[in-house]
């Protein structure tokens, strides 16, 4: 039983959706990112998604793209990602790394998995890895006992949803819109449909990402999904803070708002 599965089960037992919070490692600097992630854990996030800053973040909108650009300019390395994961895991929360595939491919899927597991990481979210190309990751994640989160899009046909969900472990990432990451005024009307289609193929939890930025939206998504993923809204809080201490306080405040939101009823 993975720590991610445990986190989703715990949330379900409390009649709420799990709260998954994303932060890129190294933004605005390594230590502040770690403290912000720990603040998320303390304020009620169930799973932490640690972003591995990548130079070609094709799924991300301007808020996250700018943050990872600044993290890379600041010299963030894969080792810093593992250190961030370690800090979250030591605090008792499930930590997944959200990463584009090339850095893992270059590091070596098996070596990356080994080092992630030894840092206490639960697995990977892989937005640009297709099932057809996932062979080395499937093998490495089995060998090192890691979760595999692939993404289902509103455009994924049933056969594709079947293929994707059959490879997932931990949860399935339901992409709410045909677009990029970033806060939106309203939760996409297609999100519930994506979750429903995922449930036709798997009993794994389905968590909705893209466009959720506040407690009210989290509540809406918690009405039909097992988990709520929030990224850009956190990153925006950090980017807009005057000092690291303000950034951490602001992340804590947003987490608390979202953690209230994911409670149903």
């Amino acid at each position, binding site marked *: 039983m993975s720590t991610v599965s445990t986190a989703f089960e715990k949330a379900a037992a409390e009649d709420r959706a799990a709260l998954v919070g994303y932060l890129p490692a190294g933004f605005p600097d390594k230590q502040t990112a770690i403290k912000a992630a720990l603040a998320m854990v303390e304020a009620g996030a169930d799973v932490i998604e640690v972003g591995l800053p990548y*130079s070609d973040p094709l799924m991300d909108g301007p808020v996250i793209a700018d943050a990872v650009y600044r993290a890379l300019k600041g010299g963030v390395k894969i080792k810093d990602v593992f250190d961030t994961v370690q800090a979250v895991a030591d605090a008792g929360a499930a930590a997944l790394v959200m990463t584009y595939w090339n*850095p893992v491919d*270059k590091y070596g899927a098996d070596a990356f998995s080994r080092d992630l597991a030894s840092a206490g990481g639960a697995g990977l979210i892989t937005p640009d890895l297709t099932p057809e190309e996932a062979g080395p990751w499937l093998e490495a994640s089995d060998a090192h006992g890691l979760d595999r989160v692939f993404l289902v899009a509103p455009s994924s046909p049933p056969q594709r949803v079947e293929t994707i969900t059959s490879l997932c472990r931990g949860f399935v990432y339901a992409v709410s819109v045909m677009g990029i990451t970033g806060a939106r005024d309203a939760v996409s009307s297609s999100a519930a449909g994506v979750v429903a289609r995922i449930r036709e193929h798997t009993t794994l939890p389905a968590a909705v990402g893209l466009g959720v930025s506040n407690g009210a939206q989290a509540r809406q998504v918690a009405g039909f999904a097992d988990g709520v993923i929030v990224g850009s809204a956190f990153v925006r809080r950090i980017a807009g803070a005057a000092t690291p201490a303000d950034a951490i306080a602001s992340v804590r405040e947003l987490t608390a708002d979202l953690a209230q939101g994911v409670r149903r009823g």
Partner: protein
Amino acid sequence: MRTYVLQDEEGQTLDTHSISAGLDYPGVGPEHSWLKDTGRAEYRSVSDAEAMEGFAALCQTEGIIPALESSHAVAGAIRLGRELGPDALILVNLSGRGDKDVATASAYFGV
């Protein structure tokens, strides 16, 4: 399916430069990667200066304005011609037209 990418030791793509906008990119297509790996094609690099020499040469000798991307092929053909000698027959694929590039060429040559 894999492809060649300019990257650092952590798998981050490198910044790139080319006088030709169409070549100013850190990766190549998987077809080219496959042709290289199977030995069907041999790839060589050409500098901005050589490409612009190729551009000028084709304009002046044939009255054909090649795209800056294709100018790299012209430069490669000139170099290959020197290696193979006067009896060699070389076919150059001019993949694009250079009237889109005259502003860049004009700035480069200062005319």
